[in-house]
């Protein structure tokens, strides 16, 4: 039998660890990607004194790579301090799984973001977050780093697919260096919206392709 994923991924897909909800969690998040339709919820319990993650659980409405990443991320995060857990990257999760196909990057990155957002949720509740920063070109660029090019698994910025970013009067204008008829144009567009639409001082996000 030829399976599309390696044995570690399949093992986590078949027997995901730390599945479920935490009642009254200290931090929680739900991340969803309209581009792929997957969704993941992450719940954490935090030891307030040591700021370490004492328990973490996840739920997934997603494909195999989404489920497997959710599972591995809970294993990686448990027992870590919040600052350590925040720094866990998609690459680390993917490496711990023995590698994920690049085309699956954006389904699996959700669990990584879910963990960060759950930590952020805890920090917000405990007044650990600094004031809201206004959106600048730099902020947009940071966010676009997280939008994956499905062909290479690289962020859009690193894959040199962002031609220009303009931020003006609550409107962001992004030009993507791909033709509009590109195989992944629609998926990438939706994912950019997902990353930028939520910025607190942004009213409109306009995405154009080069032709």
């Amino acid at each position, binding site marked *: *039998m030829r*399976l*599309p994923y390696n044995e570690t991924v399949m093992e986590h*897909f*078949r027997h*995901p660890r730390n*599945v*479920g909800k935490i009642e009254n969690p200290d931090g929680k998040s*739900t991340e969803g990607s*309209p*581009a*792929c*339709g*997957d*969704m*993941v*919820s992450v719940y954490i319990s935090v030891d307030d004194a040591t700021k370490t993650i004492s328990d973490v659980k996840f*739920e*997934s*409405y*997603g*494909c*195999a*790579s*989404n*489920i497997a990443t959710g599972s591995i991320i809970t294993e990686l995060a448990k027992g870590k301090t919040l600052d350590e857990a925040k720094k866990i990257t998609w690459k680390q999760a993917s490496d711990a799984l023995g590698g994920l196909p690049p*085309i*699956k990057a*954006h*389904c699996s990155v959700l669990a990584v973001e879910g963990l960060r957002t759950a930590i952020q949720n805890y920090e917000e509740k405990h007044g650990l977050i600094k004031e809201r920063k206004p959106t600048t070109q730099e902020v947009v660029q940071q966010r676009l780093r997280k939008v994956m090019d*499905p062909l290479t698994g690289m962020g859009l910025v690193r894959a040199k697919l962002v031609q220009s970013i303009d931020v003006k009067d609550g409107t962001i204008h992004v030009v993507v260096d791909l033709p509009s*008829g590109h*195989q*992944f144009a*629609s*998926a990438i567009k939706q994912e950019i919206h997902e990353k930028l639409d939520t910025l607190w001082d942004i009213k409109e996000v306009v995405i154009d392709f080069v032709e």
Partner: protein
Amino acid sequence: MADKTVYLDNAAATRMDERVLEVMQPFFFDTYAVATSEFGYSLGIEAREALDEARTTLAKALGASPEEFIFTSGSTESSNMAIKGVALALGEKKGKHIIVSRIEDFPVLHSAQALEKQGFRVTLLEVDGDGLVNLDNLRDAITNETILVSIQHANQEIGTIQDIEAIGKLCLEKGVIFHTDATHAFTRVGLDVSKVPVDLVTVAAHTIHGPKGVGGLYIRKGTPLAKWMDGGFQESNLRAGLENIPGAFGFARAVEIITPEETKRLKAIRDHIIERALTEIPNSTLNGHRSQRLPQNANITFHFVEGESITLHLDMRGFAVSTGSACFSRSLEGSHVIYGIGGDHERAHGSIRFSLGRYNTMDDADAVVDALAEIVSELRSISPLGKENN
């Protein structure tokens, strides 16, 4: 690992029937010559006669005359040829407007989109929640500029069968050429071009236990169609290239083997899957029309779970099915057919297509529903959606 695969993806490709291979073999080893004219050598004349015989069988299956049927490399080529051929023939002379339904398969949809880049105007006709085209909408969409309507006979994913006769009559009345992609309906749903006014019909062998790489196009006499595969004078000078005689002969044999009894048997298996799945698995929705539906197709959304996860679990248990989930597709977009019938991401996300063929049994239907009930319940237990306290 399962010892035997229960293959339920016959809309994508079918297992070839041994009887088809049997009739193809002589054309590889004995009568392998090119089909020559009647003034050629014996081996070539024999090849020509075999090709004519295959053509006659195919034409007869559609109620056409042999000279109205040409062989192609498959349904993709046939639909490209029909749509681009009509556009090339009439674009400058008559107009540059083409109408296709929103849920057409990619050969039709992408051919139309390719023409759009060449200055044609394309109307994507909406369908209703069951996938049916509305005749009044079609009537309204046709203008003086319209040269072609292309609406499939039956849908590749949700199995909905269109009223080809009514659509054909409307096109005839409006003087517009009508093409239908019958890749999935051919031989399973009747289509007689001597009664139904359709000008171009795409058919293929790969869906009916014939060889891959062979298809055909019915072209009603007098239909303007430009040649765009240039080369020799084969296929009535419409499609250049060495004829695939083993393929054509195998295609003809595959058509002969299909019986109404077999189609009836598949319909019973289909109904069993639909009825059991909808009653035994909560929160499941049938996609496509309940009765105006391909006898070999079932398509069901299992809410709150994702299709690739289901197909992977089914694969581990030895079942092959497909899904309209974005995670499964090469473009990372969910099924345009499910969106076309008004479904959202969620409906596409958990949609599973079961497509039946000759080698499926009622036991397969029971086994796949049993497996699904377990898999769906397992995946729902880890899903954040569909829980009471949510």
